[in-house]
C-alpha cells in the first residue's frame, strides 16, 4: 500500500477530493494522464452559478456557494472569484413566464437565492443590454472565477498537505490486490484501499476497468474570448431561450460560452471548433449586446467533458466492489460544485455518508445490468 486513497484524474474534482481528504489526514496520490487541468477543468467558462440549477443540484450548489464565498480560507488563494451576480434574461413575455414559474418552484423548495427582477432593475444591472428585454431571473451572490487559477490553488494547497500528483501517468489497468486497488500507469503503479474516479471525459473507460460499465457521452463545449474592452458589465449574463453565457473578466476581455459543442476525437484527445455553431453564439452576442459587433475574437477553444444522459453528475460509491467512489459526468456545469464535491467524497470515504443529499447522483441509474462485471 502506497497511500490511503488513489484518485484518478487531477482536474478540479480530483484536486478538491485530494484537498479535503488531505485536510483530514489521508495520504493521497493523484494519477493524472496529462497535466492537471489539461481538459475541461482548465478551460471551462468558470461560471459560479446557483441560478437555474436542476432541483437535485440546488442543495450542493448552495453549499458550494458558501465555500466559494470564502475560498481564500480553503485554498489560500482568491481564485480570482468575482461574485457579481448572474442574470438569466427574458427577451419576451413567454420567456418571462417561464422564469417566473421557475422562481416559484425554487421558492417552494425553500430556497431564496433566485429572484425575479423587472425591466428597470435589469437595465440598471446590465446597461449595455439590447433594449428589447423584459426582465430576468437573478442571483445576487453568483459570479465567476478563473478555472485554471482555481485548479492550481486547489492543487498547491493539496500538495502542501502532502498530496502527491503523478502527472503524465495514464492508467492502463486496475486490479484488486487483497484489500487494495492496484493502479498501473505508464509511469509506474501504486496501490491504495480506496480508489476515486474523477476522470471526466475518460470516466466511461475507467468505469469499464472497474467492472461497472456505464454509457455516457463526451463533448467539448466551445468558448471564445475577445480582446480587452473598457469595463461595461458586472454580472454573468445568460438568456432564457438561448445557449449563451456572457461575462466580462477582470482584465476587460469578454468570455463567451454557451454549450455549443465542438467536434472532437477521443483517440487523439483533440477538439476542432465548429464555426457554424460558434457563429450562432456570435449572433446571440450581437443581438443581446449590439456594441460587441466590433470586438475582436482573439481565441476560441473547447474542453473535453463527460455528459450523462440526464445531464446530472455521478457522485457516490461504486455499485460493484468496495472502496470505489465516483465523481464525474458534470455535463459542463461542474465548476460551481467542485469545492463541495471533494467534501462529499471525503465524507463518504471517511464517515460512510455525506451530509448533503446525493441520492439522485447514484451511478446505479446508468448501469447496464447485463454487462456488469461484478461478482
Amino acid at each position, binding site marked *: 500500500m502506497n497511500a490511503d486513497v488513489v484518485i484518478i484524474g487531477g482536474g478540479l474534482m480530483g484536486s478538491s477530493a485530494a484537498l479535503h481528504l488531505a485536510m483530514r489526514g489521508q495520504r493521497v496520490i493523484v494519477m493524472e494522464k496529462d497535466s492537471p487541468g489539461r481538459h475541461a477543468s482548465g478551460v471551462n467558462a468558470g461560471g459560479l452559478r446557483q441560478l437555474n440549477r436542476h432541483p437535485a443540484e440546488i442543495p450542493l450548489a448552495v453549499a458550494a456557494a458558501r465555500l466559494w464565498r470564502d475560498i481564500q480560507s480553503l485554498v489560500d488563494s482568491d481564485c480570482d472569484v468575482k461574485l457579481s451576480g448572474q442574470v438569466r434574461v427574458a427577451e419576451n413575455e413567454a420567456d418571462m413566464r417561464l422564469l417566473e414559474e421557475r422562481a416559484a418552484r425554487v421558492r417552494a423548495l425553500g430556497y431564496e437565492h433566485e429572484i425575479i427582477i423587472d425591466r428597470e432593475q435589469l437595465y440598471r444591472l446590465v446597461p449595455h443590454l439590447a433594449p428589447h428585454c423584459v426582465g430576468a431571473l437573478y442571483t445576487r451572490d453568483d459570479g465567476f472565477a478563473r478555472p485554471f487559477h482555481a485548479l492550481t490553488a486547489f492543487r498547491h494547497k493539496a500538495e502542501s498537505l502532502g498530496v502527491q500528483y503523478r502527472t503524465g501517468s495514464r492508467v492502463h489497468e486496475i486490479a484488486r490486490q487483497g484489500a487494495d486497488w492496484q493502479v498501473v500507469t505508464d509511469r509506474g503503479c501504486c496501490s491504495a484501499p480506496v480508489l476515486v474516479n474523477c476522470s471526466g471525459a475518460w470516466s466511461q473507460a475507467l468505469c469499464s476497468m472497474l467492472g461497472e460499465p456505464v454509457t455516457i457521452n463526451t463533448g467539448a463545449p466551445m468558448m471564445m474570448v475577445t480582446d480587452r474592452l473598457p469595463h461595461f458589465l458586472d454580472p454573468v449574463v445568460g438568456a432564457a431561450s438561448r445557449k449563451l453565457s456572457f461575462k466580462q473578466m477582470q482584465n476587460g476581455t469578454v468570455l463567451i460560452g454557451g454549450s455549443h459543442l465542438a467536434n472532437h476525437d477521443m483517440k487523439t484527445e483533440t477538439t476542432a471548433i465548429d464555426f457554424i455553431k460558434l457563429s450562432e453564439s456570435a449572433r446571440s452576442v450581437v443581438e443581446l449586446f449590439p456594441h460587441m459587433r466590433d470586438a*475582436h475574437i482573439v481565441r476560441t477553444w473547447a474542453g473535453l467533458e463527460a455528459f450523462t444522459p440526464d445531464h446530472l453528475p455521478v457522485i457516490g460509491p461504486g455499485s460493484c466492489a468496495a472502496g470505489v467512489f465516483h465523481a464525474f459526468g458534470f455535463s459542463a456545469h461542474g465548476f460551481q460544485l467542485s469545492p463541495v464535491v471533494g467534501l462529499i467524497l471525503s465524507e463518504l470515504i471517511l464517515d460512510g455518508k455525506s451530509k448533503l443529499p446525493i441520492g439522485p447522483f447514484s451511478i446505479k441509474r446508468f448501469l447496464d445490468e447485463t454487462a456488469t462485471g461484478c461478482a
Partner: protein
Amino acid sequence: MSAPRELVIIGAGPAGMAAASTAAGLGVDTLVLDQQPAPGGQIFRGIGQAGPAHLELLGSDYQAGAEQVASFVHSGADYQPDTAVWSLGADGELGILHRGKASLISARRVLIAGGAMERPLPFPGWTLPGVMNAGGAQILMKSSRLVPLDGVVIAGTGPLLILLAWQYMRAGVAVQAVLELAPRKNLWRAGLRLPAALRAGHYLTRGLRYLLALRRAGIRVTYGVSDLQAVGNDRLEAMTFHTGGREQTLETGNLLVHFGLVPGIQLTEAAGCHHQWDDGQQCWRPQADAWGNSSVDGIAVIGDGATIGGAVAAVHAGRLAGLEAARAMGHIDAAGRDRLAVDDRQWLQDDLRIRPFLESLHRLPDTLLSGIADNTLVCRCEEITAGEVRAAVRAGHRDPNQVKFITRCGMGPCQGRQCGQAVANIVAAACDRPVSEVVPFRVRPPLRPISMGELSMLETGNNTA
C-alpha cells in the same frame, strides 16, 4: 456548402505562385488566397508598382519577381487578394476573411505557402519605440519607399543584415553600424560546410560583393557582438553591446534587429500537422515529404513555411507541389509527375546546398535564445517577463501551455506568435530539457482576429473570386 475546390493555395509568394502556375497549367481547379493586395509575397512586395529606379535599387533578386508574377497572373489559377485565412481544419475547411466578410470554404487539397516570419527574440529594451524588425523595415522600403532618415543601426544575425545595409546605403540612408551577434566560433563550424556550399556559390559571391561595397562606403560590420541592449526612456536613444571584451555605446534613434527567419507554423499547427524541432534552423517546422505532403492527408506545405530555404528553393518546391496536386487530383499519374519533376528536384537540391553553411554561420547562441534576462518582457501583449515565466515553471507549470494558462503569456491578440518560441526555450532550459521535447503553445483559432460581427454573419460556400 457548394462543391469543394480541388486545390486552395494559401499565399501568393514565390512558392504559392509557382505551385499555382504549375497546377493550373495541368488542369487543376486552383484558387490562391493571399493577404496582400497584389501577388509576390513579402520578398517581392510592391513589385507590381516598382519603377526601373526602384528595381535597380533593390537588386537582382528582387527583379526576378516580376517574371514570376507575370507567369502566375496568366496561369489560369483563380486569385483572391486581400484575404486572411483565420482557420484551417484537417478536413480542408478554411475560414477566410475578405473585405469584412467571413466565410467557410472547403478544398479537397490545401497547399500552405504562407512563408516565414522573423524570429522574435526578446532582449533588453526590445519593446522601445525605435526598435523594429529589419525585415519589417525592408518591407516598408519595398512597398512604401519608407526609409529611416536620421541614421540606423542594424543588428542580429543572418544574411538580411548585409543585404538591408547594402540597400539602405544605395538609398542614401546613413548606416551607423552593422552588428552580427553570431559568436565567432560559428566560423569554424561554417568552414567545415563551406565546400558543399560552394556548389551554390553565387550566394556567397553576392554576399561578398555586398560586404565589399559596404566596406568601400566606410560602413562598419562588427562580428562577435554580444549583450545587445536598447536604451531609452520613452523611445530608443542609444544602444549598448559588447565586442572584444569591451562595452560600447552607440547613440541612435533607429535599431533594426533580425535574428533569422523561422517557418510560420500557425496554419500547419491549426490543421493538426505533425511538427518537429529542426536543430539546424533552431525552430519547429512541419514535417513534410519531398512533395510537400504533411502528416495530414490532403494538406501540403512548401516554401519558407515548411523549411527556411529562400525564394529560389521556394519556386522549385512550389512546382513540385503543383505537380503533386495534379497527381492527387487525377490530372496526371505518378509517372508523369516524376518525369516533370526531374529538373526541379535537382535544382532544389543544388540550391539548398548553401543552407547548412548559412545555418552554422548564423547559429544563435543559447544565451540569446533561453538566457533572456528575468526583467525582459517576453509577451508584449500581456506584459509578461521572462522572470514570470520562470516563476511559473518553479510553481510546477512545467510546459509552455500550462505557463500560458497561469500567466496569460501568449493569450493576447498576437496569439503567441511573438513569445511562443522564447517561452518554449525558457521553459525547456528551466526544466533542464532539450527544447525539442517541449510541446509549444497549442494554436487556437482564429489565427487572425475576426470581429464578433463578422463571425455572426459567417457565410458558407465556395466563392470563385
